[in-house]
């Protein structure tokens, strides 16, 4: 099925408003099914459609938001 789950490392978040900011902003992107950001673990778990978007592109978008973000291998 056209659905995959990936985990990203996200650094630089200091409070829940950063978490909601990322979830709201990335949540609206085409190909993103769901996103859950964890402040404690400095990570984000994303469900997405690989045919529409790649994990690397999602990481770049979060990086463009000003948070250091890498795909967690």
């Amino acid at each position, binding site marked *: 099925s056209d659905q995959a789950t990936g985990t990203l490392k996200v650094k630089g978040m*200091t409070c829940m*408003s*950063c978490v909601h900011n990322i979830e709201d902003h990335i949540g609206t992107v085409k190909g993103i099914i769901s996103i859950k950001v964890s402040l404690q673990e400095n990570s984000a778990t994303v469900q997405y459609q690989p045919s529409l978007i790649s994990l690397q592109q999602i990481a770049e978008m979060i990086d463009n938001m*000003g948070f250091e973000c890498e795909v967690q291998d």
Partner: protein
Amino acid sequence: HCVYEFQVEMTCEGCSNAVKRVLGKLEGQGVNTVSIDLEKQRVYVNSSLSSAQLLETIKKTGKSCSYIGVKSS
């Protein structure tokens, strides 16, 4: 260069760091200095780029923001 003033919704230090990081990526490509006043929700950018380009960059952080004008130095 001139100093552009932007209003940017920032609720915490993580948010201001995010804005600083996003603009920091343009340092050397037209952005010289970035200073942020969290209480006044203001971002001051000394740059040779256009205010539209800078606003576009800040918008990528997913925060609501608006261009105030050129700060009289």
